[in-house]
């Protein structure tokens, strides 16, 4: 059933929804930007272990004050803390962990997503732009599930959920869930299911998005 709430989701509410959906005991990588906020809504009961691709499992909250250690940072180069049961490893081992499908969930931002689950989030393809990829392509295809958090529309009002990508691809067919301020989508069997809408009706959404939507 596609559920409905009258208000758009705030960024915190989006993060809260993602956090609630992460299975207990999961190993999770939260991408730079909005996805990082998800960690603030994970509960201790969930027993989620955070991975950072620069070589650590068991990452704790952002470090403050005297806990700041320049040798202990996350992929966004922000000082963080370590939790009991943490482990450190080198870059090849860290990306082997990702590429080998050992992480349960990875949460990323996106420029565009196609109905087939193709992800674009590394490069606008704009003339003169300097390309930079970092770990985006590894993250996109590495985890068992790749989820995206984004606003559904560009500033110009265009849907970021599209039939086919116009931006350069990061990974093919990798996205299975999309969290936006107006709707949550599940992508499976080459179809786009609308799990919930927020501040818009299913029909309004259908009218603004160039892909066929299914009720969940």
């Amino acid at each position, binding site marked *: 059933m596609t559920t409905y709430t009258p208000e758009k989701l705030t960024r915190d509410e989006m993060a809260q929804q993602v956090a609630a959906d992460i299975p207990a*005991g999961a190993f999770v990588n939260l991408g730079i930007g909005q996805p990082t906020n998800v960690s603030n809504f994970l509960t201790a009961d969930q*027993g989620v272990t955070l991975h950072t691709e620069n070589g*650590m499992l068991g990452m704790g909250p952002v470090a403050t004050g005297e806990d700041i250690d320049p040798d202990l940072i996350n992929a966004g180069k922000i000082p963080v803390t*370590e939790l009991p*049961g*943490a*482990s450190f490893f080198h870059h090849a081992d860290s990306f082997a962990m990702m590429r080998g499908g050992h992480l349960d969930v990875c949460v990323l931002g996106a420029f565009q997503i196609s109905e087939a689950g193709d992800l674009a989030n590394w490069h606008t393809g704009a003339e003169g732009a300097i390309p930079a990829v970092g770990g985006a392509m590894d993250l996109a295809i590495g985890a068992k599930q790749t989820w995206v958090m984004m606003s559904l529309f560009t500033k110009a009002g265009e849907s970021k959920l599209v039939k086919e990508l116009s931006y350069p691809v990061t990974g093919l067919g990798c996205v299975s869930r999309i969290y936006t301020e107006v709707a949550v989508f599940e992508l499976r069997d080459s179809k786009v299911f609308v799990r919930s809408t927020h501040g818009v009706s299913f029909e309004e959404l259908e009218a603004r998005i160039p892909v066929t939507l299914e009720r969940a």
Partner: protein
Amino acid sequence: MAPRIATSAADAVAQITDGSTVLIGGFGNAGQPMELIDALMECGATDLTVVNNNAGQADAGLALLIKERRVKKIICSFPRQSDSWHFDEAYRAGEIELELVPQGNLAERIRAAGAGIGGFFTPTGYGTLLAEGKETRVIDGRGYVLESPIHADFALIKALRADSFGNLVYRKTARNFGPIMATAAAQAIVQVDEIVPAGGIDPENVITPGIYVDTVVALGGSN
């Protein structure tokens, strides 16, 4: 997820079913998960594909599994030993399939499975019988053979100590295949001497991160 803490070796291997591919750690007796192998013997699973450096020795462990014809195929580097009589007999009778792999390719193929690598070019074995039928390529003047990953359903591993998150440390040359086998199996089952609380292993010294470990059983130890 924190690993399941099994109550016994039998409990630890209870999920292994007929037809499974099982990686078994150890080089000689060092790092050999003898209690888990014995439990596998007792649990009755058959039609197994086993990956180990050897093909069983004397009248114990893997050799008994082979004696009882529970292993349909073995992937190993060194089956022939002075006391590998059960393998020798099964092999000569045509009752076990052997895939012989140079030891370093065996290790790298296991690592590749855990690391999501689809295949790799190795110089080891190039121009030999063990490369027959395999794709080869000369890169910068050197010959290489394309080798594929070895994925498995289960790994049976012996480590020294686990914490409650499944982080592992090993002991001396008993480390051998354990860390890579843990990464290549859908389910890694580990016997340890002891389990300590989270925080009981220095994060700098963890050899196998707990993400790779599914089941741990503490059996005490001789060390």
